[in-house]
């Protein structure tokens, strides 16, 4: 049995942010995540560090929070935020009235804007639709959500935080009506762990109603699915937004070598049973194509969905902090934190930990906005210059990842999961979507005796099924061609069994 003070359930940006905040305030804690970090909505979003512009007309409170957090993250996460800047582009037919309200509201909230002629905008982003009326420049940025989670976890681990990933909470232990701990099952070995604490924080996003039910509590959630597509190329060096009220497919974000475009919004029931419709993919492409015409003939390499956890209505027993997110005190030692955005994760964590400090009657102020994120040098990704200098024995040809780099990550982390290598090196994230390199990465892990050959066969099958789910709705043109080749390799050349 493990004893700690605070148990955090959920390894998305919010959960990881809470772990960092608790660590910096010296509170012992344990974070439990059923999958990998950023496996829910955190990892299934644009990776956009909002300037606030998107919400400035519809939700000024959230917009202000976004802008303040944008400034903080650019400062504390200098090396993991790409300061791309963003444009809101107004196309022929888009309301000028909305644009005026947009500028006025930005001005009121202090979000810096600059009106740019279409000629100037085309200088900044040559792929823009030349028919745009004008653009407004805002301080949008691009951020890698997985890396962000990892950087928060570094601070926790440096201060003895206990982290369990791939552990699913199966029970919240209650004694005398209070939550005193959880039982969590190791998703690989099946082993059950008991962790005891004084407070349990439910930071499980779209799953929070299900987790709260383990303690007999309720979280009134509405789930909304948003889908995104990834292109094979980085079509823009700036974030591109459509100057109009939020609608489908109106944001394009550059991230390393690719672009992400989305989203859509559809009500769903079960966060574990979501699928993308071809219609959504087509809508995103045609809407994104209105801003960047090349989007229409660009190779789409993957499509995916995330589920937004939206609160149904404000309850009398919950403390409304803003329209962006809420903390619910269930009154039995369980707290749920829901809503919010990737951009405001740090603020959410701060408010959550403030609530816990109050609960413990402690009085140490939050420092997460002042101290830089730790470990940025190590986790600053795998820059192209380094890849090009290291062209020997390339394992992943799409993203130029060398065998040496894969071996280094394996030695450093001891990981048994190809996903952990991908997140650190971009292995398997290019056009073939791991079709070639996963077989190799698993082979190298066998060579290093990290996993058994049986495990690697299981992992390979599992990988191929998951990979297929990710690419299934963008299979036409070159991506379909690539997919047919990969299918031929695994089912033809390698004669992989059907089950």
């Amino acid at each position, binding site marked *: 049995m493990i004893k700690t003070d605070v148990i955090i359930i959920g390894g998305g940006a919010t959960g990881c942010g809470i772990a960092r905040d608790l660590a910096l305030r010296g509170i012992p804690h344990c974070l439990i995540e059923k999958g990998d970090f950023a496996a829910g909505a955190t990892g299934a979003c644009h990776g956009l560090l909002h300037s606030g512009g998107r919400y400035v007309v519809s939700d000024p409170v959230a917009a202000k929070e976004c802008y303040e957090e944008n400034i903080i993250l650019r400062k504390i996460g200098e090396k993991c935020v790409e300061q791309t800047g963003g444009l809101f582009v107004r196309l022929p037919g888009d309301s000028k009235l909305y644009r005026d309200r947009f500028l006025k509201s930005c001005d009121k909230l202090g979000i810096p804007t600059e009106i740019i002629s279409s000629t100037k905008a085309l200088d900044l982003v040559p792929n823009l639709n030349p028919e745009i009326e004008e653009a407004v420049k805002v301080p949008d940025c691009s951020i890698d959500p997985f890396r962000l989670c990892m950087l928060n976890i570094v601070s926790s681990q440096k201060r003895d935080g206990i982290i369990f990933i791939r552990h699913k909470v199966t029970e919240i232990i209650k004694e005398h009506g209070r939550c005193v701990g959880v039982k969590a099952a190791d998703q690989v070995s099946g082993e059950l762990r008991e962790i005891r604490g004084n407070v349990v924080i439910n930071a499980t996003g779209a799953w929070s109603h299900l987790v709260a039910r383990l303690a007999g509590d309720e979280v009134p959630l509405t789930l909304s699915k948003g889908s995104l597509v990834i292109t094979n190329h980085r079509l823009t060096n700036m974030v591109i937004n459509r100057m109009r009220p939020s609608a489908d497919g109106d944001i394009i974000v550059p991230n390393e070598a690719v672009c992400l475009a989305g989203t859509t919004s559809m009500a769903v029931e079960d966060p574990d049973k979501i699928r993308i419709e*071809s219609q959504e993919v*087509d809508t995103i492409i045609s809407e994104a194509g209105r801003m960047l015409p090349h989007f229409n003939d660009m190779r789409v390499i993957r499509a995916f969905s995330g589920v937004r956890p939206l609160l149904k209505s404000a309850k009398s027993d919950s403390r409304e902090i803003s329209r962006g997110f809420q903390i619910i005190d269930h009154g039995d030692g369980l707290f749920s934190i829901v809503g919010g955005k990737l951009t405001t994760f740090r603020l959410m964590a701060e408010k959550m930990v403030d609530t816990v400090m109050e609960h413990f009657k402690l009085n140490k102020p939050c420092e997460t906005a002042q101290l830089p994120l730790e470990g940025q040098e190590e986790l600053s990704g795998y820059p192209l210059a380094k890849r090009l200098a290291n062209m020997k*024995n390339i*394992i992943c040809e799409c993203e130029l990842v060398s*065998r040496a780099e894969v071996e280094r990550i394996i030695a450093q982390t001891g990981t048994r999961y190809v996903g952990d290598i991908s997140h650190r090196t971009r292995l398997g994230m290019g056009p073939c979507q791991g079709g*070639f390199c996963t*077989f*190799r990465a*698993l*082979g*190298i892990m*066998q*060579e290093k005796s990290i996993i*058994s*050959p*049986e495990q*690697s*066969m299981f992992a390979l*099958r599992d990988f*191929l*099924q998951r990979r*297929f789910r990710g690419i*299934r709705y963008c*299979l*036409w*043109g070159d991506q*379909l*061609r690539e997919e*047919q*080749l990969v*299918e*031929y*390799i695994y*089912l*033809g*050349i*390698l*004669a*992989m*069994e*059907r*089950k």
Partner: protein
Amino acid sequence: MGVTQHDVIIIGAGVAGLTAGTLLAERGLDVALVAKGEPTACLSTGCVDICSLDHEPLHGISHLPEEHPYHLVSRGVIREALIRFQIIMEEMMLPYSGSLENNRLVLSALGTYKTTCLAPVTMAAAPQNDDDDLHIITFTGLKDFYPSYIIARRKNSSFSAYNAGVSTTMGLAANFEREDFLDSFILWLEKTKIRESKIALPAVLGLESAAAIVKIIEERVGKKVFEIPTIPPSMPGRRLFNALKDYFRKKGGTIYWSWPVSGVEKTKNIIEAVITPSEGRPNSLNAKAFILASGSFVGGGLHARRDTIVENIFNLPVFNPGKRDDWFDSDYFSLNHTIGKAGIIADSSFRPKDAPWENIFVCGGILAHTEVLKNGCGHGLALATGHAAAVSCIGYLK
């Protein structure tokens, strides 16, 4: 514009196009082959799968749905095409083992078995069941071959790694063509105390001389040796392609290499020429007949758009198995992805159905309803339909 005249022009240099080309050239026709690039044959295991649905391949064919293009070819022609292929490969020093009577197994790099009909002789000694004990050789740093995948399934086997100083499939294959390299390798092999009865290697034993190299190793070491096909670049696939290509040239065939077809000259019922934009100026390649063997999606013969499937050279009518959402089954491993049925429907003379031209023939992977993976008919279907299309073409030219 440069203008060239041939009897027959074949588009595509895969197994189907080369089978048709070699047959036409043998019959004394002036044949030219236009190829955009290397065919998918270079990515393949080099094995000829006829039909894996039954241990008797011809029996398997009778199980296929009636629209399968195999049913356009008589059993006699399939047999003839296969025998002809074996004779050609024998002549090109790359003999194939196996017969139409029974399928055989080839060991895969995952330790599973691939069912095929004819296998390159370098895979002839591959185990046909789990009893054989194997000693697997790998090469230090080779990224496309991991013996432990195989050993996990064959407890009576072990492996050793040879440090060859090179670590790519192509690099190793090129080195094996050198006598000193082969000699050092065999010396190492002799020093390695191998208990097992057979020696297995990834398919890197030479660019072209693999059959001879396997024989040399077997004689020196005194054990059976066989190759395991690897993921692309696949040497057995390249050897197959090179052998057919060299044979085609030997018989007087012409190859326009890296010349993608960019246009067509045609009348109401005759294709007159195909246009290629080679070497800075367009070329008009004229012929009396044309054979389209440009392959399926991977080969580039078919192209999927978001809403439809097209054939880009002649704009022939393409059988589309449904809407985009229906192209793939939700289970990746089901082999029931209907996209495998897409292609050109041919009539009994191998002319594309519903096309107005009398002098065009189609064969190979571009045909509809092939479902190559599901039916296990890769290369076999290309041999049979390539042969049959050429015969039909000869009949037309007479």
